[in-house]
């Protein structure tokens, strides 16, 4: 059940009463600070172009105020753009009529919020059916579908609790169950795990990855945490002052940070979990007794295998068993600790 991708093209958002008037100035290179100082308008998004592949997790990362929430809210048009397009299945979300938009929100998207945004007067079950209720799905069927997801996110037995009887982690599980019950192709998650403790957060990431393996939805995940971005993101875009300053896979970003800002961001990252063996392998002929490691494995896993086997060399093979190159334990460990320069 693969989902379709989302293409964001030349998207601009300028907050203020006369945003449209300043698009050309921004296109001409006016900065966020200058726009605010000279014209009293806030530059929210500046020429965003991102392709969010279908069935994959796209992470949008950036510091506070960089425009992450603004960007994700354009995908279901909770915020109207000043200029630009958001294309899904060949339609521009920004041009939809009110009725089309309502339909799009009901059937194609679901959203999880940083502050959970549950309905405090409804039980877990009643919160979870909300999306289906809005769609007009029959009550019994809606509750049956909701129960399945409540169980899936680990909240079985809490169906009749009210949100404020639950911990933050449990509340966000309700938020996730509510979104998943909608059975929409697009899942929008705005800092969905940011309010949670680190351990619970890891837990929730695992839940999400498990579910994603099965469902292959098009997920847009916002975070300001690089570790989270690298763990979840198939594709990562980094925002600053409303503009994308780099996008690519986690490995691309860690290995080739586009500027000093990103270098700073990635300097403390656990490289062993991000860099693949393919990146550091050489064409040197491996010895006969070399270990076999498959292409795409992370350095950390390779190092673990090598040291457990007491081996020094490993050959890297692809899915069909074809030899691609070789690594040594020294190369692996040094790539994990020092910035690899290529």
């Amino acid at each position, binding site marked *: 059940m693969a989902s379709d991708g989302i293409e964001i093209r030349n998207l601009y958002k300028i907050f203020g009463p006369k945003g449209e008037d300043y698009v050309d100035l921004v296109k001409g290179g006016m900065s966020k600070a200058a726009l605010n100082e000279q014209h009293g308008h806030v530059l929210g998004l500046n020429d965003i172009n991102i392709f969010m592949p279908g069935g994959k997790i796209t992470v949008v990362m950036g510091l506070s105020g960089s425009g992450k929430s603004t960007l994700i809210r354009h995908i279901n048009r909770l915020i109207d753009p000043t200029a630009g397009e958001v294309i899904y299945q060949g339609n521009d979300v920004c041009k939809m009529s009110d009725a089309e938009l*309502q339909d799009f*929100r009901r059937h194609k998207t679901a959203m999880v919020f940083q502050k959970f*945004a549950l*309905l405090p*007067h409804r039980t877990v079950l009643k919160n979870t059916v*909300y999306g289906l209720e*809005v769609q007009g799905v029959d009550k019994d069927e809606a509750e049956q579908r909701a129960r399945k997801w409540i169980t899936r996110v680990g909240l079985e037995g809490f169906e009749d609790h009210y949100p*404020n009887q639950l911990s933050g982690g449990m509340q966000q599980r309700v938020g996730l169950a509510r979104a998943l019950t909608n059975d929409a192709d697009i899942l929008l998650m705005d800092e969905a795990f940011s309010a949670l403790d680190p351990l619970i957060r890891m837990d929730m990431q695992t839940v999400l990855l498990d579910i994603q393996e099965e469902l292959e939805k098009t997920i847009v995940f916002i975070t300001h945490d690089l570790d989270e971005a690298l763990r979840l993101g198939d594709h990562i875009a980094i925002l600053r002052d409303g503009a994308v300053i780099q996008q690519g896979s986690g490995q691309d970003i860690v290995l080739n940070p586009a500027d000093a800002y990103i270098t700073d961001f990635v300097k403390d990252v656990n490289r062993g979990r991000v860099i693949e063996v393919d990146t550091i392998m050489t064409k040197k002929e491996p010895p006969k007794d070399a270990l076999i490691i498959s292409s795409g494995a992370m350095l950390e896993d390779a190092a673990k295998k090598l040291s457990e086997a007491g081996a020094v060399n490993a050959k890297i093979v692809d899915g069909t068993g074809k030899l691609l190159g070789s690594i040594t334990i020294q190369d692996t460990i040094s790539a994990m600790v020092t910035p690899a320069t290529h």
Partner: protein
Amino acid sequence: MEWIEFPSLSRETLRDIRVTLDDGFKEFTRAYGETLEAMLEPLKIFLIWLEDLLISSPWIIILAVIVAAVYAGSRNWKIALGTFLALVAIGIFGMWEDTMRTIAMVTVCTITAIVLGIPIGIAMSRSDRLQAIITPILDLMQTMPSFVYLIPVVMIFGLGKVPGVIAVVIYAIPPMIRLTNLGIRLVDKDVLEAADAFGSSNWQKLKDVQLPLALPTIMAGINQCIMMSLAMVVVASMIGVRGLGQPVLQAINNQYFTLGVMNGLAIVAIAIIFDRASQAYGKRLQKHSEVIHG
């Protein structure tokens, strides 16, 4: 000397203005009075029916029903017991019938205020422009001495129950409208955004999110409305509304201290019953917000 006295309009001009306005209004009354009266006929029928029901049923049944209703609403036996004792005392001191009339009057006025006030409050919460227009009108309704708007009401409807209801509703509806508006405006923006994100229509948002979340504030409005209706029964008795207000008025005119105090206390007792019962009911509706995760 010119600076001592304020240069007001001459007596003749002032008189002319008064006469013109009064005549105009009398004209209006003659033209539309009957239509207006006919429009409010159902209200009158309902009030008379309720009053008859309360007075002509056996007192023991009414007592049981009221105590049961208070208990059903509040789930609090102390409030129910207090209600029972207060009503028994009222009966013993010979004020049963007047009390029933007052309860009927307050019930009808409160229902009218709710039926009119909640939609106005909702409309007001959806438009800043409307809020800017209605707020000063509500201020006027609350500060204008009630005797002033009794004049046109009596001119149109004469003396009796219906003008009484109108006067009481004018006085008691502002908190209903204000608190409905406020309650809806205070609903958490994040929750509203979530409702939008799931594609809720305006009506779905209103009935599933805004009204339920505004309910505690709206309940406070209803409570205020009941209290203010009760406070108006004495004034309303001046235009012929029967009930506990009338003996009080009589007591004022004839300086009957004890009569005044007894009827006054009966009004207070009803007020306390209504207040505690409606507040306990409102709290019970909010049960979900009581249990906080430890």
